[in-house]
């Protein structure tokens, strides 16, 4: 009886350690991996007015998904480029969507006003959507095609006009 209890306790301890190790490996393997394939869905609140944005609502259009924060210096550099691209491609069925993460909503609003951003900006305060996309820093940009798949380059750092145009064309073709 004692031997059986001891064996059971040993097996439980080994299983617990194995479980913790598996969790650690899974976390290490997934924390820096950017999203691929079908773009993870989300519904997030707008930063400048009431209401929410659901990614699924943009199905049938190409989406430029940009993760940013108001305290991020390179985000200031790319903001005018994203705004220009949003205007340039609007009539071709392209949407630029900014996800402000790990930031104060008020700071994000001030940032949007300062750079005259008119494309939709949503707030991901807890960073859950950022984590699902495997975003490790700001800014980062993904391109999503009309069917909701991530295509083209995953850009870490400020996006250039060339990168925007090339990847948008790819997203429209796919």
């Amino acid at each position, binding site marked *: *009886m*004692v031997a059986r*209890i*001891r064996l059971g*306790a040993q097996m439980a301890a080994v299983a617990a350690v194995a479980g913790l190790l598996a969790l650690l490996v899974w976390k290490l393997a997934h924390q820096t991996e950017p999203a691929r394939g079908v773009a993870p869905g989300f519904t997030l609140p707008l930063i400048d007015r009431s209401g929410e944005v659901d990614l699924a609502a943009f199905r049938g259009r190409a989406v430029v998904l940009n993760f940013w*924060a108001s*305290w*991020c210096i390179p985000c200031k550099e790319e903001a005018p480029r994203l705004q220009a691209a949003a205007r340039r491609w609007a009539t071709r069925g392209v949407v630029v969507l900014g996800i402000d993460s*790990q*930031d*104060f*909503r008020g*700071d994000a609003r001030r940032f949007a006003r300062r750079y005259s951003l008119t494309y939709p900006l949503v707030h991901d*305060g*807890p*960073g*859950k959507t950022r984590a699902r996309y495997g975003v490790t820093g700001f800014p980062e940009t993904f391109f999503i095609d009309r069917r909701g798949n991530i295509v083209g380059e995953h850009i870490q750092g400020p996006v250039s006009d060339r990168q925007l145009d090339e990847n948008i064309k790819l997203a429209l073709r796919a």
Partner: protein
Amino acid sequence: MSRTFLGALVLSLALSVCAPASASERHPTLAELERELVCPTCQTTLDQSDSPIARRMKQYIAGRIAAGDTKSEIKEKLVEQFGQGVLSEPPRHGFALLAWALPLLGAGAAALALGALGWHWSRTRGPVGVGTAAAPASLPPQLERRVDEELARFDG
């Protein structure tokens, strides 16, 4: 008399514990809030971080303290912006209560298991006494004969 004295002692002890906590709730300091809140980008407490968002959060907290907000109000506002992950300790209510309860339950279960194991072990081993655990009940005949011979020689 002694009962009154004991009551007063308990009351003063309770007050000595509760009063600072209440003062800290009403008039929090930046230093204590920096220890109780986490920088969302670096996952360390604010007092150990100098990242841009940590600096901004410290500035925000200082502003809220100056405006007269309580500790809970400041934390609530930051949770609203950054989620529960901004707290260095999980809250003691709702689902997060599990984070506090599970280690205690685990420790309790382990103590119970050890107790049951010890109890079972002590029962199966039988009474401890001279000759019961140390020596076997009977010796092989050859060895017994030799022991008798040795004892006889010793006595003789």
